[in-house]
Structures are given as C-alpha cells and as structure tokens.
C-alpha cells in the first residue's frame, strides 16, 4: 500500500496485512511530530508526483533487498505534536534485510519525495529546511 492521506493510519492493521507465510520479520518506522517548541505543523505535497516517487522507492527497495512487501503511508494537512506523520512497514524473511529495507525507504523518502512541512509556533511560523539537496531517484 502506497498512500498519501490526511487521516491517521491503523498501524496494527497494516502490520497484520503485511504478514505472509514466509515472513520472519516485519520492521516498522513511524515518524511523529516532535515538540520543538511548536504547536503543530502543516504538511504540503505535490500529490501525484509524491505518490509516484513513493512507488519508485518501493520498487528500488524491493530490487535492492529480498523483501516481501513495503507499505508507505504519508500524511498531509494539519498535524499536532505527537501525531503520526509517516508509516513504513517492511516485511522480509529475516530481520537484517527488513531493517536495511526500512532504513533505505525512509532515507530515500527524505531525499526525493516532494513533501514540505511548515511549523507553527506560538507567535511565528517557519518552513522546515530539507535535510538533503535535490537528488533524482536512481
């Protein structure tokens, strides 16, 4: 499942759905809104392109590592401190490739997927600077 959505996700349900008879490991990454002195944030996306890039990242990860499945759900819209931002669920036969695959997906997502965060402080607002310069998917 690859999805951009405003609503929160059901972590347990998506993990259950990622299980298959050959699965020996499922690694989950959840990014959440950290309290950096902010009251909340708004996430903006270039929707169609972001979904397409997420699909590419899944394909890259599955080519790079022996994974059974990769699910990525990224939220958009207004979020508060503590809210979920992104969920990545990677299933594989063994833990090592599941960890590596999950790390690969979140690292690539942060490099290429056109999503931006604006943080709202009590009396101010600021755009979160991207962690990486633009790098095209390979």
């Amino acid at each position: 499942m690859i999805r951009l959505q405003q609503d929160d996700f059901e972590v347990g349900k998506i993990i259950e759905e990622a299980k298959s008879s050959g699965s020996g490991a499922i690694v989950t990454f959840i990014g959440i809104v950290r309290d950096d002195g902010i009251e909340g944030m708004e996430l903006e996306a270039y929707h169609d392109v972001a979904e397409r890039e997420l699909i590419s990242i899944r394909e890259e990860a599955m080519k790079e590592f022996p994974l059974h499945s990769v699910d990525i759900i990224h939220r958009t819209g207004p979020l508060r401190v503590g809210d979920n931002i992104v969920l990545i669920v990677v299933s594989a036969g063994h833990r090592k490739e599941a960890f590596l695959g999950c790390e690969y997906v979140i690292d690539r997502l942060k490099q290429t997927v056109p999503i931006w965060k604006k943080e709202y402080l009590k009396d101010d607002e600021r755009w979160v600077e991207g962690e990486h310069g633009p790098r095209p998917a390979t």
Partner: protein
Amino acid sequence: MKVRIKAFARFREIIGSENTLELHNGTSVLGALKSLSAGSKDFRDACFDKEGNVASHVVLMINGKRISGSDRDAVELDEGDELAVFPPVAGG
C-alpha cells in the same frame, strides 16, 4: 503557448499554487521563471541567485520529472507543459 507553473511551500506562498503563462514557443525554463519574477520581487529573490541564475537549491520539475544539471534552466518548454518549482523536500 500555454504553460502551467505549479509552486509549492515558500514559492506557493509568494506566487500562488498555480499560474498559467502565455509564452512564446521555445521559451526556456529560465524565461518562464523570469516572466513570473517580473511581477514579484519576492519570487525573484527566492528563485534566483545574485548572478541571475536559478538558485542551486531550487528544485525544478517538468511534467513531474526533475530536471538537473548546470544547464537545466535552458530546457525549452512545450505547449501544455507543467513546470513545478519548489525548495528542497522535507517529508518523513
């Protein structure tokens, strides 16, 4: 020819999320962005460096594909193209 410009994040705040420009055939990415910046000093400051080139941190896409390289702003646009302009991504 008509070209759609989509802007995101701080660029959207300056010029709005979508603009349609009427441009001469063969207009480059640089030409389109200069056309937009003619009406907005804020956009010009955000988009261009001191030498008048598109700043290196500005990400450009044509029809959803990144354009990169030192001559990226020389790429010519076609009728109906969608040119997207935005800062480095910050998802996750």
